């Protein structure tokens, strides 16, 4: 019986959650991504690394169609499937897609409201109106983001009273309160001090139990600490994709080795 449960878990883990197939992406006439093929599997933490302008954030923002909000920017070739559905097909509602594919940004951006309201905002939009149910959702999200003990006595105070690291964890709580399947993180620790960074990294590793996570980072050590797999991008191309330990101990492509070891000209 135990064996069967384990086998099922493994099968579940290997399920493809995001499938990128031959994707080109353009900002107007400028091609930012070139023929990208990539599969993200369930409960996997994938790190995107590469120099500025290599296309890693652009690809991340494709996964929940955040790029739709940029004038003239679009996928010009290829397909992106999230849990089997092509995200550009007419039946996919971008707002619903963004609920399923949550996002945490480089700078923490809490709403100018209370801690409680920041977390309750998403579930309320999704139709939760009953107070006790909402209290439960808020507490669960704050516990999962390792913030509950620090804020439980001041839930109705302004979110701006929190430290930078706490604000970023609040943004993670806000993102997971609507029960997404995938969490996208765009340099979530770049504005944090080392202790706050460590807390967010610990949180990321905890969250992998429930979510599939894709993180863009410029911090190589962060990629090695938190991710299972790493994708290295350069000039809009996916140069190398593999297990993080293999990429950082024995990369196959000289471009990858040059970049991760600081030899990029």
């Amino acid at each position: 019986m135990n064996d069967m449960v384990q086998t099922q878990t493994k099968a579940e883990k290997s399920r493809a959650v995001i499938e990128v197939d031959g994707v080109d992406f353009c900002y107007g006439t400028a091609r930012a991504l070139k023929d990208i093929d990539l599969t993200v599997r369930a409960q996997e933490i994938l790190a995107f690394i590469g120099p500025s302008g290599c296309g890693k954030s652009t690809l991340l923002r494709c996964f929940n169609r955040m790029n739709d909000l940029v004038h003239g920017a679009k996928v010009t070739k290829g397909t992106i499937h999230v849990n089997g559905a092509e995200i550009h097909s007419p039946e996919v509602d971008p707002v619903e897609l963004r609920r399923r594919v949550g996002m945490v940004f480089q700078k923490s951006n809490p709403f100018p409201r209370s801690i409680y309201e920041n977390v309750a905002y998403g579930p309320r939009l999704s139709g939760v109106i009953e107070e006790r149910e909402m209290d439960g959702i808020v507490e669960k999200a704050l516990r999962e983001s390792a913030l509950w003990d620090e804020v439980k006595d001041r839930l109705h105070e302004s979110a701006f009273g929190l430290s930078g690291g706490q604000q970023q964890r609040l943004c993670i709580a806000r993102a997971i309160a609507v029960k997404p399947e995938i969490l996208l993180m765009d340099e979530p620790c770049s504005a944090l001090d080392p202790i706050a960074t460590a807390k967010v990294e610990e949180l990321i590793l905890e969250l992998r139990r429930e979510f599939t996570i894709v993180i863009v980072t410029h911090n190589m050590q962060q990629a090695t600490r938190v991710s299972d797999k790493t994708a290295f991008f350069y000039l809009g191309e996916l140069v190398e994709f593999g297990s993080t330990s293999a990429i950082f101990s024995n990369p196959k492509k000289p471009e990858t080795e040059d970049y991760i070891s600081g030899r990029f000209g």
Partner: protein
Amino acid sequence: MHPDSPHIIREFDEAISFLRREVIAMAGQTRLNLERAIQALLERDIDRCKIVIADDSEVDDLQRSIDSTGMDILVRFHPVASDLRLVISSMKVAANLERISDHAVNIAKRAKKMAKRSELSYVKLIEPVYAVADKILRDAVAAYTDRNISLGASLKERDKELDRLHKNVIATLSAQLEEGGERGEDLLHLIFVARSLERTGDLSVNIGEDAVFLGSAQDIRYDRKLAAEIDDEDGADG
């Protein structure tokens, strides 16, 4: 372009070059110690024995310096990929060289004791054992400095020749020892000298394995099949 292309931080390249130079210097000193110990044994030269014993502290100092430089590079620069493998393998190579130098000291100490007594013809048995051990050590160091994985992987097989030679010498010396006589103590010294040379071969094989790890990230320790495959593949490629 890696690993010869320059790092963005020049100090990193300088630290890595320094580390490599230290390992090469340590390898040179270790080989010299071993060579002098054997010369001292064959030529019954007590002064040379003393030099070997004194020079071992230089090898110890180099090992400490290599470990400290390696730690410093790890702490300051967080190297990855082949840079990380170079730091780790350099520290491991240094540990193996230090033990080889200790064997040279053991040989020198025994040579010193033997030199106080009359010449023993069986000493000549040691020379061919040393010749093979030194060749394996030389190639192990070359495999590390040149990142030559096929050379590194080939040493395990070549060490077997050394093992055979060692076994034959031990058999001859043991037979003589069983016959009795006044030179029992010196025969025992020679058995331990042969044993030190055989251990030098084993430690050189370790260095060869470190060189394979440095060049290809493969861990061939305890894996004869993999070592043979690397040896064959590169041999076939010429």
